[in-house]
């Protein structure tokens, strides 16, 4: 049976949704959410690269045996998830400060007018 690699297309969908939120949404919180959506798309791509049909987790502790899924993409995904958490924390704290200064989260209102 022919499969069209639906997870790969879902990755493209997630990345484009995130970019769309970044470009066309006015609220800073929604833009931060867009970045996290892009990041989850990339993480999904990494983890799907490591998937094998009918495979078990690459752990030998009382494993039932059989083919194992690729360990390297899982490690890369773990790294990039933690990186995403760090970026998210810093972005949200900057958003908090922007709201304190401007009293709004609309990206057009806080645009630096200086040319």
């Amino acid at each position, binding site marked *: 049976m022919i499969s069209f690699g639906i997870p790969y297309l879902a990755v493209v969908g997630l990345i484009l949704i995130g*970019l769309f939120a970044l*470009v066309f949404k006015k609220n800073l919180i929604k*833009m931060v959410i867009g970045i996290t959506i892009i990041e989850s798309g990339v993480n999904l791509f990494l983890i799907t690269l490591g998937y094998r049909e009918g495979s078990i987790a690459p752990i030998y502790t009382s494993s039932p045996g059989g083919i194992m899924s690729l360990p390297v993409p899982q490690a890369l995904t773990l790294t990039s998830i933690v990186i995403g958490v760090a970026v998210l924390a810093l972005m949200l704290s900057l958003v908090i400060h922007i709201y304190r200064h401007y009293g709004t989260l609309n990206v057009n209102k806080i645009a630096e007018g*200086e040319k």
Partner: protein
Amino acid sequence: MFDLEFFRINTGSGYWDPILWIFAFIIILVIVYVIRNLGKKDFKKSGEKSKVFLSGNPEYDKEQMHIKGSNLYWGFTESMKWLYDILNRFHTGNVSDYVLWFVVVMAALFIVMTISGGI
């Protein structure tokens, strides 16, 4: 490509030698000094000769004589107003515009790569 001479960069069709440039500069300074000494000796900085003349108007005090930074190149920015209008329309300090330009450049590169026959 490069001459192995110590100071000299050979730039393909010519060369650049800072030490030589400095020598030439000093020589020109000496010439300028000599020509300056040919001037009148009996000139005295006194009287009406050294007064500021603003077409008869009274002279301002010094702080007002200083030209502010925004007034410099006023003529240039006025004559180039069309260009500055275009540029200012691009430089909206808006984050989503920055990301939009990133997407646009990526799309343009895709098109360039497509017409370049690579694909």
